[in-house]
């Protein structure tokens, strides 16, 4: 019984929105489709790092991550419905 519950948790998935900008668009599922936004089904629990790994984005590639309206870090936890945006470094200020 306990084992089943545990299995159930491991198998649970959630939907999140991902957005990959400019040079990173090639890492999108179906990169040839239009737009930069996709819905991604991902196993719970997940972090930003899990999402990048699932998309095969090299973790050491210089990039900026937004998690919803905040800046995201690799170990930030992801919840269902979150929006993860990844884009190349930008300059200014």
């Amino acid at each position, binding site marked *: 019984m306990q084992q089943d519950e545990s299995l159930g948790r491991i198998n649970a998935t959630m939907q999140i929105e991902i957005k990959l900008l400019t040079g990173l668009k090639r890492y999108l599922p179906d990169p040839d489709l239009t737009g930069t936004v996709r819905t991604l089904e991902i196993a719970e629990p997940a972090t930003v790092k899990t999402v990048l790994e699932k998309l095969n984005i090299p973790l050491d590639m210089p990039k900026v991550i*937004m998690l919803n309206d*905040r800046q995201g870090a690799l170990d930030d936890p992801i919840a269902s419905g979150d929006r993860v945006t990844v884009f190349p470094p*930008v300059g*200014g200020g």
Partner: protein
Amino acid sequence: MSILKIDMNKKEVVKEVFPKNKLVGGRAMIDYLLTEYGSPTAHPLSPEAPFIAAPGLLAGTSAPQSGRMSFGGKSPLTGGIKEANSGGTAGDMLGRLGIRAIKVQGKSDQWQVLKINAEETVLEPAGDIVGMENYAACEKLRQRYGKKVSVIIIGPAGEMKLANSTVAVTDPEDRPARHAGRGGVGAIMGSKGLKAIVVDSTGVHSRKAANPDAFKQAVKTAVETIQNNPLRQVFNSLGTNVCIDADGDRGSLPTRNHRHGAFEKRKGLCSNTMIELNNARGGSMGNACMPGCIVRCSPIFHDADGNHVTSALEYETIAMLGANLGIDDLDPVARMDRRCDELGLDTIEVGCAIGVLNDVGLFEFGDVAKAESYIEEIAQGTPMGRIIGSGVTQTAKVFGIDRIPAVKGQGIPAHCARSLKGWGVTYATSPQGADHTAGVVEDDPLNPVGQVERSRMSQIYTAALDATGLCMFTFLAGTPDIIASMVAALYGVPWTTADFEELGKEMLRQERAFNIKAGIGPEADGLPDWMRTEPLPPTGAVFDVPQEEIDQLFNF
């Protein structure tokens, strides 16, 4: 369209017709008028050396984010040509009034205010605002001239004619938080005896286009392009401060006097920390600096008691007064930014200058009180304050420091040249000196190959963009056809991407020609030698773009 020629000796204003279809504006207007009226060998602060202010080609129209205002002349910091631009409300107002440029020469013994509105342009005694810091002076000027004015003003640093002094422009909240920061443009304005320019365009409609339908369509395309650019949301939500993490991650965040490219305590400075503090204290992200802004990238920052401290707390300031001084707390950085805005000082140059004092034991990294006390010394005009207020190169000279983060006398900004080599080429070669807005290059940052070509194109397109008055965060420099369509429809002349590019090239040629006559030749187009030998942790990068290649940058 007109140009205002101000003779400060006679206190005389002459309004001349400016040829409507002569397509120079903003930085191009500085280049044009300085070439026409300025002597490259004159002292930058001499009466005959002109101070020039110019809105861009698209100012005063419905073109989005087109109110950047250029200020310039011969720089007391670099000794060469100088243009620095700023947001704020004045560019749009001057555009509406049909004023393409203000050229000021001569010197008034008594400080003056130049009042510009639809009826008249007159010089008036500055009176009790002389010696005042910027916020108080602007409040006084609003009482004197009405609440709807936009104010262009120099602070005490400009009055002291310090080589690191700014020209401030008031923002939509009427705060003098927008600064044409670099190269000592405040001192050039101050050297004429001009304390402020007060602009009022009340009741004046935006400019009519020669081809209204085409202009409307071109503006619509521009607006949609900006709205659809994903970077809009990034800058709106996170501010330019997004770069603290972005540059920290790639080893290009100047830390402890440019000795490191990453700051281990950067969390205290980053966007998320700013957002959390803003949410708790009533500050805000996402504010506009000019009418018609779609991106709205500016934070307004409050203290722990919920009182406004500063507006436009930008990445460059946070990096140079934070990480570069080993300071990991946004509160003191915001306080110092406010003091610099009050005094009219460029935060990049101040951060560089205090940073090098570590080399001679006059500053310990992380010492907030000492950093703040040095800025107060500038306020008081003490000899030490005046030294720091003269920029990093002068400061280093006075204290016998040989490791100077500067090009052509101007401090290197907050994207490290060694680990962003294309940007480094821009710092090395720009006629403006080390300037992060003169030609951004992000590609393949650690590879020296191909960076000269990238920097050349970026500098050409950026120069032309600076002529239009468009903000660099319209991200339109990459789609010059959209910009060219707006200019063509507004002025009713054929103007294409090729013209845009040729304008940028001609500007760089003019700027370089002025510099050469001023004694700043090709030999000045390089980064400091130590950047070629001292590795920058954590990437270990040195600047290794061959000088022979760099010397070819202006071959176009």
